[in-house]
């Protein structure tokens, strides 16, 4: 089966506080990534590529840039007469649960789910990066006759609150769940992509409202491990969870590995994003670029090594940029030198400035700052 009988639901403010540098002025979903994307492009494209034509984007705060980015959903082919993209802003209804939480945001838009006709809901947070075929997960869910299917990652436990850790039996059925504060070594943890029936999700949300629950994981899912049919689906390929500026940096750098790029930018399942109508990128005399990902609209005259360069960036003569993530519209002036730096959008690094972070602690320059 494909996503026709399925509604997509994305929460855009997922773990904003884990990434204060980039998600202080915007939602996690609108954090720039990979030169030309925003994080929400990945769950949105995954859903659309699975044939889902109805997607709700729930948000609670700081959503101007998100609204600007997703608009009516045209780049994802979600600007539809029927279904399509619905923006679900906080809505002061009858909920007594704070809307800044994921659950509060969903409760305040409960009508959207009630009015839908689709049988299933695929939920995704926006700090998880992957390009996966969700129809496989959906078929898994249906064939297991599961109540809830959790997409999980086997890896180092992220530094995030409310991350479920699972134990499965040989049939991938969840036998135990916990919410540890920290764990050593690799574990199977919830990637915050899950499938359940719409009916069950409504039931959960009503329960949360009735009992004033604030955490999906702790208050709703955890107590039901014995009573519900819950299964785990290991998300295949390149799957990463962003839990800090450090992991944001590391995951960005992982894109320089062709294997990861082929996984994340699989041409059969393109990642769609807002169109900017930039011109192609120009490399001038003296440009010296290696092992870097460069988006369109850039003008490169200097040296670039091991970098992610976003749209409309200018790197002037003699500038040297290494091991850095340079975001949209930034200008690195003549003979400036950057090592292990993340610049947010529209920063200007003046001539001859030298900025150096460390691999383990990249130097961050906030949006619009001129140095």
């Amino acid at each position: 089966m494909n996503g026709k009988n399925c509604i997509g639901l994305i929460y855009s403010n997922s773990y904003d506080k884990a990434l204060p540098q980039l998600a202080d002025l915007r939602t996690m979903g609108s954090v720039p990534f990979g030169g030309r994307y925003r994080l929400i492009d990945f769950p949105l494209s995954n859903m659309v590529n699975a044939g889902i034509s109805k997607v709700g984007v729930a948000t609670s705060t700081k959503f101007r840039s998100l609204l600007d980015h997703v608009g009516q959903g045209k780049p994802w082919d979600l600007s539809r007469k029927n279904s399509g993209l619905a923006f679900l802003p906080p809505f002061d209804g009858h909920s007594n649960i704070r809307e800044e939480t994921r659950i509060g945001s969903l409760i305040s838009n409960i009508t959207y789910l009630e009015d839908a006709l689709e049988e299933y809901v695929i939920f995704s947070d926006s700090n998880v990066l992957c390009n996966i075929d969700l129809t496989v997960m959906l078929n898994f869910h249906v064939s297991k006759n599961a109540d809830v299917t959790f997409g999980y990652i086997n890896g180092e436990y992220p530094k995030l609150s409310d991350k479920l850790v699972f134990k499965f039996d040989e049939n991938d059925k969840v036998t135990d769940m916990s919410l540890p504060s920290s764990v050593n070594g690799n574990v199977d943890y919830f990637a915050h992509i899950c499938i359940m029936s719409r009916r069950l999700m409504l039931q959960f949300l009503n329960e949360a409202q009735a009992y004033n629950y604030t955490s999906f994981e702790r208050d709703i899912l955890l107590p039901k491990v014995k009573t519900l049919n819950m299964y785990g689906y290991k998300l295949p390929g390149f799957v990463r969870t962003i839990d800090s500026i450090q992991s944001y940096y590391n995951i960005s750098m992982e894109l320089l590995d062709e294997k990861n790029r082929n996984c994340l930018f699989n041409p059969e399942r393109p990642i769609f994003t807002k169109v900017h109508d930039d011109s192609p990128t120009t490399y001038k005399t003296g440009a010296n670029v290696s092992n870097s990902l460069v988006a369109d609209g850039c003008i490169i005259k200097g040296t670039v090594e091991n970098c992610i360069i976003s749209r409309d960036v200018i790197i002037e003569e003699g500038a040297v940029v290494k091991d850095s993530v340079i975001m949209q519209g930034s200008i690195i002036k003549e003979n400036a030198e950057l090592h292990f730096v993340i610049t947010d959008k529209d920063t200007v690094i003046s001539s001859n400035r030298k900025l150096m972070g460390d691999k383990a602690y990249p130097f961050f320059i906030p949006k619009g700052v001129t140095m």
Partner: protein
Amino acid sequence: MARKQECIAMLLAGGQGSRLGVLTRNIAKPALPYGGKYRIIDFPLSNSINSGITTVGVLTQYQPLVLNDYIGNGAAWDLDREFGGVHILSPYQQIGESQWYKGTANAIYQNINFIDRYNPEYVAVLSGDHIYKMNYAKMLDFHKKKGADCTIAMMEVPWSEASRFGLMFVDDNGKITAFEEKPKNPKSNMASMGVYIFTWSKLRKYLIEDEAKEGSSNDFGKDVIPAMHENGEGMFAYRFDGYWKDVGTIESLWDANLELLTESSGIDLNDEYWKIYAKNTANPPQYVANTAELQNGILGAGDYIAGKVDYSVLFSNVKIEEGALVEFSVVMPGAVIKKGAIVTHAIIGENCVIEENAKVGERPENFEHGEGWGVSVAGPGTTIHKNAVLTAGKMIENNIEEGVTI
């Protein structure tokens, strides 16, 4: 009274561009790729929307498939509209007769009904195959200020090239006093750019008269404009002095692309205030590998560069493998240049594969055969197999087998 639009544009996009050989075998000239991302028709379409013209009829005839698909509903140029927007106008069947567009004027004549639906005061008639950035709104202001019936955009061209153009003589007031169509010995170097604004009621009348005229070739330059001039209609020339290019030949297409790499090209594609829109595909950023040597290049999205690139324009999803060399060349979308291949002074068509150690094109300074040097062209979809050679000035539409020299 129904809604009306002050000015609509009719874009002539039926041209074959026969001198472009294999490159226009399956696509019309306006659909030719240009500048690492664009197709030529993006320029008149973007000019229209940037000038505030929101109704554009695109007249297609020759190989319209790619063009139709590319233009779609016009959303890429913001021309998907409830009232107006972009419309593809192909020749159609009518009671009693059905005919192809016999000439540029006949193409507009056959679509009088389309134009009348918008009840416009003015109609801009544009060529779909010219590269230029022009504000038609300014030209329209000029047209109105002069009280003209027809305004023709003109620009100064080098005297040596003047004989290729329709030339004009203009008085101090900007009024056109005489025309000369591609004369052997030009007496003017003010050339028509193929951009016209007409007062629709006047043009409508002349189109109907021209259609009824025996022996007319139904062409704007040859028939309609001279007829209007003879009858003393108000014909004015609007002077334009920006970048304008008609890429009629392989050499000029190659040149127009590589010209973008020079600072003084005269056309700025990075202009925030006059964006050239194109249909975007969902490609990731380009990747430049450790082994790449990349200078003086314009690169599209999704490219993978591991070889040496110098003075070249590469469209989207091009792959240059390690040890390959691409210089002074235009590489169209999806082409792959494999290890050890050398591509110089060439145009590589869409989805071509240049295999290991194959050689395409020659530097003019290395050309040993005297006369006859030219840009080499690998037609769309062709494969040049290992160790094969495509020599200077040659054009292919079929594969070259291993080791063969053409």
